[in-house]
């Protein structure tokens, strides 16, 4: 594997037909790079949940994966409304999703806690009216993160 590999995708807000395409391409990239499946599965959950949040909550954004020999970093960046209360948003069951989104099977307030469970490190920087940057890290070797 090269020392650094980066892929970036634009994710459109409210485009439920295309939602997940970026995550799937990142998944295929990881498989192509030979990332072991337990790691790529965790990465899939993180990227897809983050992508769905871009589609549902922020009017779209940028999804990026950065792969080095040590770790995978997933970044979701948007210029949406921001998250007013991050502690609340991290709680299982909290959601501001619309009825339309719920009818499609999303908006149960499971995404952020699920991202946290599958990351070794998770950082969310959010400013109301400016946007949100979510950065999740998965280490390829045990003992480098704080998971568990």
């Amino acid at each position, binding site marked *: 594997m090269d020392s650094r590999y980066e892929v970036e995708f634009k994710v459109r807000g409210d485009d439920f*037909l295309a*939602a*997940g395409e970026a995550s*799937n391409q990142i998944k295929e990239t990881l498989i192509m790079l030979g990332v072991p499946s337990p790691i790529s599965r965790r990465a899939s959950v993180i990227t897809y949940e983050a992508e769905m949040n871009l589609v549902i909550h922020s009017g779209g954004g940028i999804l990026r994966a950065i792969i080095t020999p040590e770790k995978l970093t997933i970044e979701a960046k948007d210029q949406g409304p921001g998250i007013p209360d991050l502690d609340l948003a991290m709680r299982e069951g909290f959601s501001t999703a619309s009825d339309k989104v719920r009818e499609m099977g999303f*908006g149960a307030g*499971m*995404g952020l806690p*699920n991202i946290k469970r599958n990351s070794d490190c998770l950082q969310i920087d959010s400013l109301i009216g400016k946007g949100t940057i979510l950065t999740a890290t998965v280490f390829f070797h045990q003992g480098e993160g704080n998971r568990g």
Partner: protein
Amino acid sequence: MNLKEIVSCIGAETLHGEDLLEKVEVEKAYASDLMSDVLAFAWPGTLLLTGLTNVQIVRTAQMMDIPAVVFVRGKRPQEEAVALAKNIGMPLLVSSMSMYETCGLLYKAGLSPCVIPAREA
């Protein structure tokens, strides 16, 4: 259990992927109308049962390494969902029975559940 056995167990209609039925093996099933929960609780390689029909069902299955989907209550997946499934080679089945009855038959036939891990309240 392979999908062919599953089709005969629940009397399902195969919408797509007839040629894959004998090749695809599943040990577990997860049934939900909440994709949020599928993402949190389904194990890789699990069969998904759902009453939802939109394209995100197939997308979620793809992301979670779920090899096939059973639509219950005779619900038929939307055109976009079928198109994506064909594209990625994912068999789609339709059961005319309720979620409960479909799951009950599969449980009796030996498909195991996805154990839900304990987590913080």
